């Protein structure tokens, strides 16, 4: 809370710091809303934004961008006169339009000449036009003479008609000019009047016309070229016109941007008779910075009240903004997380876990060191060469490099180098397993691969459950901790289910665990779940009136809950088999390409050029196709199988009003 005469200084200071994610005071304290009123800005933010965008449009005409937010200084903020600014821009727009109108006039000329050109292409030479007088000739070709002194005005008079006028040979009389005139037949009426006016005399020169078509075409080409060049010059005049005002436009833009953000900050202020109140969130480690700054500009005449995020988030979980603090090298994975949603305040940031899970999944599906090295190279080169400003593209290139590195490691583990076994596998021969000749080793058949992926899936789901419990404990959500699908009872059922399934498999699919044990493992948690609908009913306020149907509702909810838990966990676990599937597909594709290469090989059995071409093309196809599939499936498994266990994406991102972003 500050005094109203300090509001300008405080606004500027807040803008300079760019720390505060503003909220309306009524979000924090509803009772205050009746005692305060909003500040009405002198100029509406929308009006400023519109003019700012106008300037960006003019800058875009000369392929320039507005200044970066980093270059803006609050000290440069001056009052803005929207009407005056619009006037300046309107004048600029009018000047641009004038040039466009000239361009349009040139365009008409070009179209006229192209019209004549089109017509001329239909005939071998001009004599045909003159002599044929075919109903299909649309050009009128005449030869005649006029007085030399009238040539200029004659050409001017013809300007509105598409025409080619060329001087021909030597006239009989000195003061005469001999002309070849090509016009459109449809303009005969208008042309005849012009010819009469200038005293045109027909001169018959059929022989001279033969071979003149090339000259006429050349004349046309030159005229067209001149008109197009003039059009280009006019286009560059627009560029020059705007570029001459480039500095002014940039300054205008900067001031507008400052005013826009200034207005935006003040839009969150509320006032009483003599004070102004505002509220917002900032990282707790920046608190003293803000305190010092506000106290300085108000000379201590301010009241600052602080609340920890945890206090507010208990009642209003979605209201506290979230700032994710991850090291820069994790930014591709942070992008994957925020693409899904922003984590809720106080919950675990899944970014590091996603990094590990995603890369393992990718590696298992794309386990080839050679292919991985290609991705690593492409991703690294792309990151180094990319000069654009889009963080999304940069993150994607980095992600490709990471995936490549993971695939290299997996390739070494599986002994796969562009589909070949250059070195013995460190873990097991994936290629050999798929092809049916694994020999000895830890994994000897495809079921072994499937089992690995199932175990991996169980680990991921279990980790998701544990994270959910941690989140629930951190937020004091005890009911959810116990009864949620991903809660303790749900986890108990899952663990029991995994145990029962493993027991069943280990006993050759013939025997389940003892009934007593099953009752203990599965029966008890299922029974405990009957309490969920009852407790929900009792805890929910306002409560629906109890009726005879209420126990039926409880029963149905219980049944549905059990079905959801059992089927959901089963589906989630089996979903990880796609990791095996894609890995097997990767190997199978390489086997197929090697087979094709052998088919194309020479009679001596050695590879021919064609074989190598097949292998190169095959490798490229596998890298692209399998790379894309593996990337997408890894994302899907993370989003659907992993996040669904614990991720509450109901957070909102920390978005302070700051000079440093170019868009609000």
């Amino acid at each position, binding site marked *: 809370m500050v005094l109203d005469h300090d509001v300008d200084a405080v606004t500027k200071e807040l803008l300079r710091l760019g720390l505060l994610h503003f909220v309306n005071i009524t979000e924090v304290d509803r009772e205050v809303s009746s005692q305060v009123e909003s500040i009405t800005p002198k100029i509406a933010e929308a009006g400023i934004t519109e003019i700012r965008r106008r300037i960006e449009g003019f800058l*875009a005409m000369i392929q320039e961008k507005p200044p970066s937010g980093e270059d803006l200084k609050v000290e440069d903020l001056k009052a803005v006169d929207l009407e005056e600014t619009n006037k300046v821009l*309107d004048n600029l*727009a009018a000047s641009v339009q004038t040039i466009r109108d000239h361009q349009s006039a040139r365009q*008409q000329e070009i*179209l*006229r000449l192209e019209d004549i050109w089109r*017509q001329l292409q239909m005939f071998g030479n001009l004599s045909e036009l003159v002599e044929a007088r075919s109903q299909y000739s649309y050009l009128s070709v005449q030869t005649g003479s006029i007085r030399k002194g009238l040539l200029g005005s004659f050409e001017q008079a013809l300007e509105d008609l598409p025409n080619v006028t060329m001087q021909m040979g030597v006239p009989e009389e000195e003061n005469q000019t001999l002309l070849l005139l090509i016009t459109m037949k449809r303009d005969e009426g208008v042309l005849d009047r012009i010819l009469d006016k200038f005293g045109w005399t027909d001169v018959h020169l059929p022989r001279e016309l033969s071979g003149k078509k090339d000259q006429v075409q050349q004349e046309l080409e030159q005229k067209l070229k001149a008109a197009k060049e003039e059009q280009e010059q006019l*286009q560059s005049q627009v560029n020059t016109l705007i570029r001459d005002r480039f500095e002014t436009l940039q300054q205008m833009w900067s001031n507008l941007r400052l005013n826009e953000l200034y207005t935006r900050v003040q839009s969150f202020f509320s006032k009483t008779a003599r004070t102004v109140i505002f509220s917002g969130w900032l990282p707790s480690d920046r608190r003293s910075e803000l305190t010092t700054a506000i106290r300085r500009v108000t000379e201590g005449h301010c009241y600052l009240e602080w609340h920890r995020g945890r206090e507010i988030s208990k009642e209003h979980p979605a209201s506290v903004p979230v700032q994710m603090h991850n090291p820069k090298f994790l930014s591709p994975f942070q992008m994957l997380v925020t693409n899904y949603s922003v984590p809720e305040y106080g919950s675990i940031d899944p970014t590091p876990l996603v990094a590990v899970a995603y890369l393992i999944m990718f590696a298992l599906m794309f386990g080839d060191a050679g292919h991985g090295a290609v991705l690593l190279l492409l991703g690294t080169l792309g990151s180094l060469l990319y000069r654009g400003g889009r963080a999304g593209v940069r993150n994607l290139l980095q992600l490709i490099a990471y995936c490549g590195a993971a695939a290299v490691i997996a390739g070494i583990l599986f002994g796969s180098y562009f589909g070949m076994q250059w070195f013995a596998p460190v873990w097991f021969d994936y290629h050999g397993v798929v092809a049916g000749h694994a020999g000895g080793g830890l994994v000897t058949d495809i079921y072994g691969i499937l089992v690995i992926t199932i175990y991996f899936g169980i680990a991921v789901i279990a980790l998701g459950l544990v994270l959910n419990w941690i989140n629930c404990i951190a937020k004091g959500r005890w009911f959810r901790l116990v009864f949620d699908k991903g809660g303790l009872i749900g986890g108990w059922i899952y663990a029991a289910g995994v145990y029962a399934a493993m027991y069943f498999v280990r006993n050759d699919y013939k025997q389940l665990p003892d009934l007593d044990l099953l009752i203990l493992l599965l029966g008890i948690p299922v029974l405990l779940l009957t309490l969920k609908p009852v407790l929900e009913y009792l805890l929910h306020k306002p409560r629906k009136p109890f009726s005879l149907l209420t126990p039926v509702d409880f029963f149905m909810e219980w049944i549905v809950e059990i079905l959801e838990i059992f089927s959901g966990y089963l589906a989630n676990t089996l979903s990880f088999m796609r990791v095996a599937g894609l890995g097997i597909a990767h190997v199978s594709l390489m086997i197929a390409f090697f087979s094709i290469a052998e088919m194309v090989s020479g009679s001596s059995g050695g590879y021919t050029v064609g074989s190598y071409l097949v292998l190169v093309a095959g490798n490229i196809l596998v890298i692209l196709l399998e790379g894309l599939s593996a990337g997408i499936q890894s994302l899907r498994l993370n989003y659907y199988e992993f996040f669904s266990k614990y991720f509450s994406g109901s957070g909102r991102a920390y978005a302070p009003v700051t000079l440093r972003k170019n868009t609000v």
Partner: protein
Amino acid sequence: MAGPLRTYAFINAKLRTRISKILPQQFIRQLIRARSLAESVQMLGETDFVSVQKVYERTGDIKTAELELLRKELSVYLELENLVEEDLREFVQALSERFEIENLKNAFRLWFDRRVRGRNIEDARRYLMRRRIHYQIDLEAIIDADTLEQAADGLAATPYTALVRQQAAAVMEAASLFPLELALDRYLYGRLAQAADRLEPRDREIARRLIGVEIDLQNVSWLIRFKNFYSLEAERALGYTLPGGLNLSGELMRQIYGAERTERQISALVGKRYPEIAPLLASEGRGKLSARLTMIERILEQIMTIEVRKIMTGYPFTIGIILAYFILKGSEIRKIMTVLNAKFYEWPEERILTLV
């Protein structure tokens, strides 16, 4: 015939992605709010219509930019002809014939202006689309012909020759191109109906519905013209309309054209099938027929929007996705054209908004 999944899986994914990139109404409003034509065109530089912006930047000519827009719309159809399976190609080709016929109509209009009305058509003829669509048509031959019969000779290798010859006398007698334009439109919708008949039953039903709504729109548009410009009697006006409409039967059109008040008829039209449009009925123009017809036009446009929405939210593997794409894309291009033209003539924002 391949199953619907195989026929439409790829094209469905492709077109839905493209539909998601169609410019939203908010962007169209921004185009309208731009304070000059140049600034409005500049905004297109950030969209799929960047070629239109480049053309305008180079030529300064709004009509050349419009021609570029038309070319873009045509290329949408021609591209799809190459992407669809054999069994759909005839239908898509029939759809793209509308451009050829529209081009032909424009050429005939120029002929009529030059030959019958004695006007200078120099400016207008430069903006014909000279690209070959399905048939090689000599547009210059048409425009510069002395008679319609002569113009028909220039259409020798096309199915339009006979049409033009048949209508030549009627055009000269009526001193209007309308008989010829109507004949060309009947030919177009006849082709579409034929091509639709060869589709699978589900696709056929969808195609007929959407084409039917389009025919209704065309008919209402003509009825407005007949009333406002020609003051035709009802029977004569109705004789000129196209058959095959979805919602406007001959009888309903007769009632609308002739009656003073039309709430009952329109409620019957809209009623159960499209309850979402009921609020529009409350503001139906009373009194002048042209106002009522304009309202009906709006209702039919809403019906088209509803039908398209049904397709987008329904079973995806049908011809509906192709038709929906054409309709939405065509609407997008027409809106842009309307806005750029209106900006050129410096119309106020409010007026432009009513058109889009």
